[in-house]
């Protein structure tokens, strides 16, 4: 079901309006390049991602999904990290049931100035996904 045969992997990023969006925007401002097949949907908080959305993305052909989590910077409270983590583990279980490699869903905290770290994450995720496709 996942996308194959393209130079770059198609990745969906769930980013957050107050924390990781500014980092992704700043990556653009600083012209830190990353593959153009990476798309972001922004939401208020990373702990609000529904597992069914992630599965929907895989069904529609995304090779990977990345949650750019608020981490400890979340404006809505400290429980965000734990809750986002739980979403990932729940979804990993659902993915296994559907024979999707769990490594296709990643999460990392991206703070509002973590542009470089975002780009690094994207490049390595892209490479890993391409390798998985090759394998």
């Amino acid at each position, binding site marked *: 079901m996942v996308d194959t045969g393209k130079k770059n992997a198609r990745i969906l990023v769930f980013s957050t309006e107050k924390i990781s969006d500014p980092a992704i*925007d700043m*990556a*653009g401002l600083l012209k830190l390049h990353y593959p153009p097949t990476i798309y972001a*949907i922004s*939401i208020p908080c990373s702990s*609000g991602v529904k597992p069914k959305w992630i599965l929907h993305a895989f069904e529609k052909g*995304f090779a990977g999904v990345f949650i750019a989590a608020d981490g400890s*910077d979340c404006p809505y*409270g400290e429980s965000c990290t734990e809750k986002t983590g739980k979403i990932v583990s729940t979804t990993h279980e659902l993915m296994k049931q559907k024979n999707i490699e769990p490594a296709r869903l990643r999460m990392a905290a991206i703070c509002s*100035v973590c542009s470089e770290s975002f780009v690094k994450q994207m490049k390595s995720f892209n490479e890993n996904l391409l390798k998985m496709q090759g394998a």
Partner: protein
Amino acid sequence: MNNKLGVYICHCGGNISDYIDVEKVRQSVENEEGVFLAKTTMFACGDSNQKEMVEDIKNNHLDGVVVASCSPKLHLLTFRAVTERGELNKYNYVHANIREQASWAHSDDKAGATEKAIHIVKAAIAKVRFAESLVPIKISSIKSVAVIGGGVAGMKAAIELSDLGCQVYLIEREYFVGGRVSQWDSLFTTNETGKELVTRLYNDLVKQKNITVYTGAEVISNSGNIGDFKLKIKITPRYIKAKCNQGELQNAIDVCPVEVPDDFNFNITGRKAIYHNFPSEYPQSPVIDIKNCTRCGACEKICENVDFTQKEEIMDINVGSVLMATGFDPYTPADGEFGYNSFDNVITLPQFKRIIDLSNEKLTFKGREIKNIAYIYCVGSRQVEGENKYCSRYCCTSAIHAAIIAKKKFLNIYNFHFTRGIRTYGKQEVLYDESSRMGDIYLQSYENDPPVVTGRNDKAVVRINDILTGKREMEVEADLVVLVTGMVPRKDNSVGSLFKLPKGRDRFFNEIHMKLRPVETVIDGITISGACQGPKNIMETANSALSAAAKSYSYVSKGELELEPIIARIDKDLCTWCNACAQACPFNAIEMEEGKTKNVASINNSACKGCGMCLPVCPTDAINLIAYSNNEIESMIDALAG
């Protein structure tokens, strides 16, 4: 479903169209379902395009609008307002970011950037089809502001806010207000002293009826939001009764057996555990430094005003806005950095300023008279190796000013400045001229060839390859080496973390946008001012404090604020009330509601912040966030995947 959409794709001058084939994007989306018109524009945000959009919306009765341009951080509000002027509810507007996330991010791949932009615009179109008209939630806003930090920025802002009619709480962590400026003597450009400036502001401050000043006070928690921040403040007592007799007090200080470094004088002198900083600091009441006090009771025996029974207090205050004015710390050089802590006559600029202030007739340090002074600039700023890449802005002028004051106040002072290029910007340039005319020597080193400090006899020797005299090696035997240290963020910046304020690459608090929203932070209702935002001189600090005060005022002045109606919504048919959502909600915004056939969850609209934490935990998928519903997100995914 909205079915008559207007789509506008912006060239942004060339910021977008230099990398993205804007016309191709337009053609690729004009036949998407529901699109009524699709246009390109040179500047979507320009007045003429805004007018055109208003006309388009009105004349064609559009029911949804998309602009594909820069980040929504910049112009989401601009285009919502345009939509509203077109007599369409502003929540029928969706913003597509094809600049920061397409043209700029992929300026190396024009075809890729164009392809991505097409998908981004299609996703926005998919989303706007589900958009609905919403009414903002109105909340009341308390007409009071907490100003955190009682330096010149905080005092100035507090006075301004009080003049404008707000209740103000000025919260200072130290026992005295005035901050760093109270530690400075003569100030550039007015030659007013720091203590005079602080005195002037303090007198204004105490005249105000609606300012409450808390010293020795720290914010320990916050559980509210814009319009209604609920702060807990911990106030440590002074252990001195409110009214005390100065004469007895001096005796009490004299008998105190504890001596600790005096941080008011940047540790070049000592002070007792019971102390005051008269006449520079306010309030003019002494304090017992309880951390260092041994409770020997000597002061208590002499002075009846000492009161060890005073207890720490916790106060609750409610404010509509918080203004941060927490200032900076001077950079502390590492051991051995330009001889710091290796030679006992190597000191920092703030220490030097205190020495000038404390010395009379002769400039002395550790009992020795000072004649030759070497200043090494950019210590802790513009670091090649270290992490402080930024310029600290105030130090060139401040060091030159101190050098001039030393020369004027004392005889036989010779100043040698080891610089990396003097930055007396603007009118401060005249000070640099004055110092050169007075005979100060300026030497400049190469970027990769900093001056070296070594010892010879009891003097420190500063050696430099000087650019200005054609790379000649120059040596100065100095009685005193002054390290011109820059500004760094406060060592203890926990109050920033408490409010979750983002920091920039320089680790100072960050504004939303340097030019558009220079005193606002991403946390609604919290403004920043002064040097906690980055290095500033006093005038720049006053300007930023007044700007921040005006902004904080605008949050509370009307007594009412409009909040985004982006909140959670329960599908009562699907809900089976399991309490999972209520447990996940950090704001206690979900309660059980008894229904006729079953109990269901219900959302408290003014408490819900729209974070969405309740969404994934619902076993029956009965909760959606307005504007982020399953339909919207899944159709966006479809568009992005296609």
